């Protein structure tokens, strides 16, 4: 859920002639790949769509800490524990970069987080799936972060300056995440026991389809894509990105010595791409609606953290005010 399913409010694209002079100037800037900055004039729809997209992206990073947090207390070696901790910390950091970029548009972080807790906005549906074994830490890093990177690499060229800069930073930092995940799986497949190998295959079986769903509905069912593409806050279609991901992932899967739970997955010489089976879109929409295995738990955890921490934040604020008062009295 990065740029895959973001409401734009636009049912069809305006032509340059139909636009107001400001809109036309804006669109020409975007077309010329000039970055839009916080203080530039922008259409209200662009601003709203961006806030929605960036907040969803940020929420995804933050909620995305939880499936991994589920295993950080059970990491099997010191090295793996440190790697996982660093990765989770990066995710919190990436959430913060994105909220920070979002706030340049005048949006309020607390308000956007409230919307998340009230179930009014979405986050990547993948994080509503449970992590059931240690191998999931490998699969999440390899498949889930891998899919996210495919999305995020193109978002580095997004038209909004602060968003683009946050994405550049995030992509740079995330380069180790996918490798870390793949290495977990590779080590178990190469040197692990039979049980460990089964753990890996089982994990891939569970995450394969949900990872493909991360790219969002197929292009035919993405009514908002056209406007987002015109605004260049989305740079490639859902299906294009999904195909890219599959093409780069299948050889890695084969190298592991594992299989995908898709009998239709095979190389198509004519297309120069892998063919793959039909995604279960009913499952996708149900998980998105809140009926996934962990939707309630994930939101509950975040709500408890923020609501339960209210007294802490208030105390810090009260203390800061007292200190300021003291300084003023002393001066």
């Amino acid at each position, binding site marked *: 859920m990065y740029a895959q399913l973001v409401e734009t409010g636009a049912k069809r694209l305006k032509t340059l002639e139909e636009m107001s002079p400001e809109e036309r100037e804006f669109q020409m800037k975007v077309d010329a790949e000039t970055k839009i900055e916080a203080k530039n*004039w922008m259409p209200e729809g662009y601003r709203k769509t961006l806030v929605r997209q960036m907040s969803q992206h940020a929420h995804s990073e933050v909620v995305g800490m939880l499936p991994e947090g589920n295993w950080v207390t059970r990491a099997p070696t010191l090295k793996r524990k440190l790697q996982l901790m660093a990765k989770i*910390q990066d995710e919190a*950091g990436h959430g*913060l970069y994105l909220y920070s970029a979002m706030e340049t548009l005048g949006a309020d972080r*607390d308000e956007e987080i409230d919307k998340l807790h009230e179930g009014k906005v979405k986050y990547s549906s993948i994080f509503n799936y449970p992590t059931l074994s240690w191998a999931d830490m490998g699969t999440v890093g390899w498949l889930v972060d891998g899919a996210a990177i495919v999305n995020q690499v193109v978002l580095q060229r997004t038209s909004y300056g602060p968003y683009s800069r946050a994405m550049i930073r995030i992509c740079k930092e995330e380069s180790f995440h996918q490798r870390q995940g793949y290495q977990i799986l590779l080590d178990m497949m190469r040197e692990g026991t039979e049980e460990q190998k089964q753990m890996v295959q089982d994990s891939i079986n569970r995450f394969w389809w949900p990872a493909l769903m991360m790219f969002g509905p197929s292009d035919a069912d993405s009514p908002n894509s056209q406007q987002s593409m015109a605004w260049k806050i989305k740079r490639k279609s859902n299906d294009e990105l999904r195909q890219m991901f599959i093409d780069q992932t299948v050889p890695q899967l084969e190298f592991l010595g594992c299989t995908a739970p898709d009998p239709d997955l095979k190389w198509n010489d004519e297309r120069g791409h892998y063919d793959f089976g039909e995604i279960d879109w009913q499952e996708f929409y149900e998980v998105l609606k809140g009926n996934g295995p962990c939707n309630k738990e994930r939101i509950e955890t975040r709500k408890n953290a923020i609501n339960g921490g209210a007294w802490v934040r208030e105390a*810090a604020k009260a203390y800061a005010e007292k200190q300021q008062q003291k300084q003023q009295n002393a001066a």
Partner: protein
Amino acid sequence: MADWPLYEVFVRSKHGLNHKHVGSVHAADSEMAMENARDLYTRRSEGVSIWVVPSSAITASSPDEKEVLFDPSDDKIYRHASFYKLPDEVGHM
């Protein structure tokens, strides 16, 4: 969070370079802002120096004023070293 104000963060990456704006953090006070900035923006030892400034204290030029503020200097090419052509024999200056 809960009214913790926003601070803009500037990081100097190496000695000799200017501080560069990297983003923002929320914090209850400036000490906390400094620590939060350190934890967020220098996790990979990106910085040797950090400034935090309350966002409310920053006045930004509006891009719409760009022409008024910045265009006048566009033609003052004599401010730039490359304006001055020196004979090659002078060497690097």
